[in-house]
């Protein structure tokens, strides 16, 4: 549980990665991801357990499993033409994964399990770069474990859902301020680290099938607060002075919210060959007002980091074409609105609105086994942005510049059915 919380914290700190709005990493199924990560109405594989558990009961097979992993290659560049400074994040491959399983108990009742990493972030700037007082590096990961049920109420309507167990890890390092060093000129910095932070939430969904060709889906996942309590905070390279914090380890408390997410969408299958999907998603990021890090050492003031996120929408479009008996092709697009508001653009989450272009295919190796591949190219406009809530001596010290980022997410998975 604690691990999940920590992960959440990392996300908060370091959402520089370019996956989806905030520190949401949308890569919970290769088949959906290839279609713009739309899937609330798509009854296709065990991926439905995550996208819309109520749809599990419509799966034809008795037991089906989907599993996969995605490599996240994100790049963020920053420059400030008024000072001539520039920086970029280090390459690091995040690896969100998923495991979904659905078991059809009988015609009207299915059980499922979904293990995913829908939130996470990993951003590493060059140490002591121009924004090092905001973040040097951050690593956040949260794992969702969801036992699920799906109940068919009629041919046209089903419901589903279940609890969510979360465990998260967080590790976040940044410099104490823009100038403080020890006697050797090494920048004073603070690392907070916590693992196994846990909490619980829930999900609820329905699927409405008015005609055979059309499924309308709705899914809601609740907000989950990852409360890191008693984590480890390490103070390094502070000078030996009674006027500054001492080097060493203390504890910290902080809360990272994983926002609630609502999805409404449909899948339309005009014929055997084609499927079209659309999801509208709303992420309730307004819960993320501020990241407050409270230290165990009473001499160290609480670090208040305004975030002031807003709720954000995502529009997902996907299409699937069954080319042969063995090969299914998919393409998609999504528009990902950033929850970050003007003046709150922090380099740990340098996210403006993104355009995701996706493609992928499934190859049916045998009756039971298929390989699913997907590829996402996430593109962001070059943006002039600033984070204005950092202050020194009671004065706001904006951190501004031009950001340009992109991300490539190749993913591979398998679908197995009995």
């Amino acid at each position, binding site marked *: 549980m604690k691990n999940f919380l920590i992960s959440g914290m990392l996300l908060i700190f370091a959402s520089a990665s370019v996956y989806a709005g905030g520190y949401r990493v949308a890569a919970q199924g290769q088949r959906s991801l290839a279609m713009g990560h739309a899937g609330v109405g798509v009854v296709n594989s065990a991926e439905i357990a995550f996208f819309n558990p109520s749809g599990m009961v419509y799966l034809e097979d008795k037991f089906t499993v989907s599993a996969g992993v995605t*490599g996240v*290659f994100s*790049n*963020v*560049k920053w*420059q400030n*033409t*008024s*000072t*001539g*400074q*520039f920086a*970029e994040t280090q*390459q690091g*491959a995040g690896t969100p994964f998923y495991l979904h399983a659905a078991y059809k108990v009988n015609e009207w009742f299915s059980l499922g399990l979904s293990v995913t990493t829908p939130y996470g972030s990993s951003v590493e700037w060059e140490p002591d770069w*121009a924004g090092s007082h905001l973040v040097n590096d951050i690593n956040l990961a949260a794992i969702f474990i969801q036992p699920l049920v799906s109940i068919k109420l009629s041919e046209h309507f089903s419901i589903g859902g279940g609890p969510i167990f979360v465990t998260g890890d967080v590790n976040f390092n940044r410099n104490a301020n*823009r*100038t*403080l*060093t020890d*006697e*050797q*000129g090494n920048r004073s910095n603070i690392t907070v680290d916590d693992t196994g932070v846990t909490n619980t939430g829930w999900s609820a969904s329905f699927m409405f099938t008015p005609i055979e060709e059309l499924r309308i889906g709705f899914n809601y996942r609740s907000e989950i607060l990852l409360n890191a309590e008693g984590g480890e905070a390490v103070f390094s390279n502070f*000078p*030996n*002075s*009674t*006027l*500054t914090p001492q080097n060493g380890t203390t504890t910290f408390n902080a809360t990272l919210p994983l926002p609630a997410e609502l999805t409404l969408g449909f899948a339309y299958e005009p014929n055997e060959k084609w499927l079209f999907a659309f999801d509208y998603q709303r992420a309730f990021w307004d819960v993320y007002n501020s990241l407050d890090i409270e230290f165990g050492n009473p001499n160290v003031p609480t670090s208040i980091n305004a975030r002031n996120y807003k709720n954000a929408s995502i529009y997902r479009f996907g299409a699937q074409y069954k080319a042969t008996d063995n090969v299914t092709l998919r393409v998609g697009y999504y528009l990902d609105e950033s929850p970050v508001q003007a003046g709150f653009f922090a380099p740990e989450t340098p996210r403006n609105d993104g355009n995701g272009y996706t493609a992928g295919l499934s190859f049916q*190796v045998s009756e039971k086994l298929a*390989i699913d*591949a997907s590829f996402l190219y996430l593109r*962001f406009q*070059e943006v002039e942005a600033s984070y204005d809530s950092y*202050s*020194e*001596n009671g*004065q*706001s*010290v*904006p951190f501004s510049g*031009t950001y*340009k*980022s*992109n991300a*490539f997410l*190749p993913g*591979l998975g*398998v679908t197995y059915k009995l």
Partner: protein
Amino acid sequence: MKNYIKYLPLLAIGLLSCEPEFDDAIEENEVYTAGEADFSNYVSLGNSLTAGFADNALYIQGQQNSYPNIIAGQFALVGGGVFTQPLMADNLGGLLLNGMQIANNRLVLSTVSGSPAPTLIAGTPQTEITNKLSGPFNNMGVPGAKSFHLVAPGYGNVAGVELGQANPYFVRFSSSETTAILADAVAQNPSFFSLWIGNNDILGYATSGGTGEDQAGNLDPSTYGSTDITDPNVFGGVYTQLINELNANASGGVVYNIPNVTDIPFFTTVPNNALVLDAASAGSLTGFFQSVAGIFTQGLIQQGLPPTQAQALAAQYAITFNEGPNRFVIDVPVTQTNPLGFRQMQMGELLLLTINQGALAQGYGSVALSPAVLQVLGILQQGGTPTQEQAQLVLGAVNGIDDKDALDSGELNAISNARSSYNSTIQSLAEANGLAFVDADALLNRVGQGLSFPGGIITSDFVTGGAFSLDGVHLTPRGYALIANETLRVINQTYGSNLPEVNVGEYATITLSDNVD
């Protein structure tokens, strides 16, 4: 499945190469231009300010924040080459000559004594000046150098250090025992240069409280003492030679004028009216100096001076003190018009940072009252006549501030005359040669009034102001960043470049540390 997996590393490599690109990327040299200047081989000449001296020492961190190093960082955006500096061995500062320490460690702000105070950082310095560094170095700033030192052969000869004929900092990286700083600079064939020299030509005198000589009229600098003021013609001749040789093959350069001593906290931190008195003390001090005047009048009369003349001459010693701040009493040379050799300080006269402030609180700068003196004063109060010995006791109790602790108006005039002459030389040579000119005097004057930046205000206040290091004379990294920004601004103006200025808030001020002995 296996077949697919083997291609994954290739895919990963392909993705890594797909980095986002800015429309106009600084990194790709798409934003700035050098204008008419060529920054490929920039060489800086000067004294401690150019070297990055701070906190009364030269140490690595200070050197890395020297203004030449800061501007070289911006030059690098438009084709500037690597900028090398003769880095010290450590961050302690201090120098060794054959293992003997010949220069102090740097100052840090320590709280060990209970209240924050500049204190020497503890440790044994590792910079042995006989360890010759192999150059050449782009930063030729040499702490302590005066104008004429830049052209002095043998200024980097280790044998001359103990005799005061050579400079330990130049000894570290001079190309030979006979070379001069200018010669080593010109040998690098700089494409661009900076020159900030002349500060020490008056500062040595000023920081000694004016104990040296004003050498105006003496054209032989080899006869000057270290605390003397350099003759303006000597300065002018040397400066002309420096510009001519540096500019011969360079695309351009930037020169700096000399700031006023009143721009520097070393001279402005202790006010000359810090003698704060309550009404009773003011009254008794006034009474004391009336007694002094009275005793002196009597003495003069006894020596045969007519009483009116005696009273007129002695009247200057009947100094009146008022409740609140009063100017200190200062010792001055004995003259016919001031036979006792003291007077109250005048507006504009300065006290040095190094003055013993504890002593000031104990009567240094006014009167050293002993019980014996008080007894004599009592006799006088009751209308009695003290003996000659007793009278002398009263006169001797006057405790004026020593010459070494203050700059009086005469000394300030000498400094000011030399400085204006140097500055007009610098500015006219800059104009004549089309060089960029930094009005460092005006800049530091603005700092004195407070310069705001995102994150605070930079002032010249000692310790807290942000611009000046703990020695009160040299700048902090933030202060040097201000110099660098002004330099970049005038270079852009002169050469049509568009170099960006640095963010001064990212440059540190003073170092806090209790690592002291």
